[in-house]
């Protein structure tokens, strides 16, 4: 929110021409008070014997949770762990426990700016499961706790993937709940959180010998995914998540027929994928894939996929290399030129955007952008070669 221009209070010397010393004093007071509040809250939940105290603690948590500050996020996550560990008692009922955990997780993961690392994803998975159950029963809106839990899990992929080994994400109710998060009536931030979480369970959902859901549901998810594409900003992590899911779907014979053109368009992010990315590796090592994509009769998609294969040509298995050459020969350059031009202009556009972003950024982000620019340049070389019909 932007404040309107200052029209009142200028007459007072104390109004807002605050000295640096005063500002520092208030900032220090804020930090001290946050520490005191969380210390008291932690003590209350570690020894939850007094019902009025717990009620007051819950009221205080509800008030402090909306504040976006790093200390709040960090302390809230620590408090969440305390809340989840403390056993249920007559004064600390299950209802209060889940309410406290909801508020603590809201304080920790309400905004993208400050996301503490998850130490034990099992607790968050339990929390997520509980809120999925409640959401299934209807009544109160559970979007926010679910969003916070998914955001927390997606923010710490390593521990989450490890924890998911002891969790079944293909369980029908869980699958249904996740799929429901992409529906149009859900808030964009919830969809985004679900999308960022989806790659973590991608291998259990898409790389399976048998489909985990029926064709109708698969089609529905693909359509929902296509509809959420334009609902939030495509930041780097979103682009990566989209591509990871898409590559898993492409590689699956069950999912591939349901991918809609809006999803295929996301192949444009292929240069973001790291070299050791498992879904990409599986895709480019799949000899059937090139024919399957040819069969789609979508020249633009085929052009993209050929660029991807050309880009990774040195790493392709001989069988795929042979098939790629064959397909390239089959293509009449003139027929595919408009699509290749479209691909080329897209790559040029992304190169320009990445170059501008590189000028503004420093540190690890600059490193990522540098890699992306290298990949894009390399892809452009292949694309130009493809356009003029070179082998």
């Amino acid at each position: 929110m932007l404040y309107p221009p200052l029209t009142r209070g200028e007459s007072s010397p104390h109004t807002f021409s605050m000295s640096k010393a005063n500002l520092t004093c208030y900032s220090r007071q804020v930090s001290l008070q946050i520490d005191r509040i969380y210390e008291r809250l932690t003590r209350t939940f570690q020894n939850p014997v007094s019902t009025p105290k717990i009620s007051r603690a819950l009221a205080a948590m509800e008030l402090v949770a909306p504040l976006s500050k790093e200390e709040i996020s960090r302390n809230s996550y620590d408090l969440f762990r305390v809340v989840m560990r403390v056993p249920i008692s007559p004064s600390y009922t299950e209802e209060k426990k889940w309410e406290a955990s909801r508020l603590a997780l809201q304080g920790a993961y309400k905004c993208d700016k400050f996301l503490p690392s998850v130490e034990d994803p099992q607790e968050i998975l339990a929390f997520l499961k509980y809120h999925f159950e409640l959401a299934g029963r209807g009544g109160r809106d559970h979007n926010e706790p679910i969003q916070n839990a998914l955001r927390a899990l997606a923010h710490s992929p390593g521990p989450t993937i490890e924890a998911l080994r002891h969790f079944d994400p293909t369980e029908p109710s869980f699958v249904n709940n996740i799929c429901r998060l992409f529906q149009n009536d859900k808030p964009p931030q919830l969809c985004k959180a679900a999308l960022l979480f989806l790659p973590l369970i991608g291998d259990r959902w898409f790389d399976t010998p048998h489909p985990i859901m029926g064709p109708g549901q698969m089609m529905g998810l693909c359509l929902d995914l296509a509809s959420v594409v334009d609902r939030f900003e495509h930041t780097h992590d979103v682009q990566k998540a989209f591509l990871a899911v898409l590559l898993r779907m492409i590689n699956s014979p069950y999912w591939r027929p349901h991918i809609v053109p809006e999803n295929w368009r996301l192949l444009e992010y292929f240069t973001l994928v790291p070299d050791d990315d498992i879904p990409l590796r599986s895709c480019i090592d799949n000899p059937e894939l090139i024919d399957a994509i040819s069969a789609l009769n979508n020249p633009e998609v085929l052009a993209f996929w050929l660029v991807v294969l050309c880009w990774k040509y040195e790493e392709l298995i001989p069988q795929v290399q042979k098939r790629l050459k064959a397909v390239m020969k089959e293509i009449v350059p003139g027929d595919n030129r408009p699509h290749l031009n479209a691909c080329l202009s897209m790559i040029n556009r992304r190169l320009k955007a990445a170059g501008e972003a590189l000028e503004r950024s420093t540190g690890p982000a600059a490193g990522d952008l540098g890699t992306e620019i290298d990949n894009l340049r390399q892809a452009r070389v292949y694309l130009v070669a493809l356009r003029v019909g070179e082998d």
Partner: protein
Amino acid sequence: MFSAVASAFIVDVQTELEPDYEEMNHALLKIIASSALGNIPTDADAAFPVWNGPDGTIIHVQTILYSSLSASLLAALIAMMGKQWLNRYASVELGSIIERGRRRKRKMDGMVTWKFDLVMECLPLMPQVALLLLGYALSNYLYVTNKVVASVVIGFTAFGLLFYLLIVSAATLSYNCPFQTPLSRVFRFLVRFDNEHKRCLRRFGELFGRCLDWFRRKFTRKKNRPIPRSSGTPDLFDWNGPGDRTESPVANPPGQSPMTLNWGLYKSDSDCIDWTLEKSLDADVTMAIARVIPEIVWHPGIPAAPLERFYDVLLECFDCSSRPPTVKQDLGEMAYLSARALVDMVTQRVAFVGSELVRAALESISARHQTMGLRDYEGDSDLKSTLGVFDHILGNWESSTSMDWQNFSFTIPHHSWMSSNLFTHAIPALQTFDSLPSDIRGFIIYSLRLDPPPPAQIVADCLFMIGLVLDFQPPLNALSSPDKR
């Protein structure tokens, strides 16, 4: 008057500076008469009277009297000149307001540079000296003439002198002493007490205070009662009344942090406000006062706050014939400032003094009040929210229509003031309802949810309110910091 009195005595004593021919004639006639009767005078009686000049005491007395007269006349001269100087300062000169202002400023600067006030303050010193000299001369003269008569004059002169010395001493030691004289000011300037002297003086003061207490207990039946405080109100302020600040009337004493509360200053601020409201009907003055009110801590040492007066000011800004009332044209700022001042005073008085003491004023206001916070006021969120809070204070925080914080768009100073005010309000509200009223909760959530976050002092106030929910003691500095918004 001094000159006339001194002159009268001078004329009377003047005769003793010349030979007394009547007395000499009387002595000669006595010798002649005695000789004629055949009684030839002998020894001293036969000596012809010879004048050997005036008596030493008379010369001394007359010198002092002339000094007294000169001092009086000099004082009169300077007083006349002072009148001329002041006339020049007060003279109205032609020109634009800016030019006149500039000339007035130049004159004022000159007065400050040439210490005009000190010169004018020292003027009464001369008649005082003249009076002292007159008393001394008179005592001396009468002592020679008649000791009984002299004792009366000496007694009164000594009493006057002693009284004057005590007054000067008291005024030197205490800045707040009302019996200030230029001499005490000079003494205070000249005498810089070191710590040891101060300790001695403090000990002496304590001893004197104990004696005074003893006398008071002995002779005073009725003791002044402190302002009662409601039983439910926390004892937030360790109120001991305004301290005597000998060193400086305005600034905090050296070594005292600027965050330290200066109760006396708030008390004098409130007194100034009372006096100004009583003397002035100027709208600009009222607005200036309304701006200052939130900067004062209305602590228990302040006997009353001008609640009803400001409610009248608020009502004057509204057209109460429509329901709900509308703000009159061009009076939006006045309405806002008076409403803010009113809310601030009521909140502070309830929190710091107790609702019992403001109940009468609030009941009187409630009887006349119509709900004002429902109108949009052309998007003036500051005014609408202030009036809304005032409606709630007069009604009940829980039962009134809740404040729609999310739809407000505050200026930073107002937002900051609102957070400070609600924090003050939260203290008694928590005691009454055992939980924060929903409107205060709404305000905290609204403020903390802002992106980017509001200024640090608003966040601090919100966190202090959250602290109250967790039974933390309210921090005194935060409630009454000098930069109260």
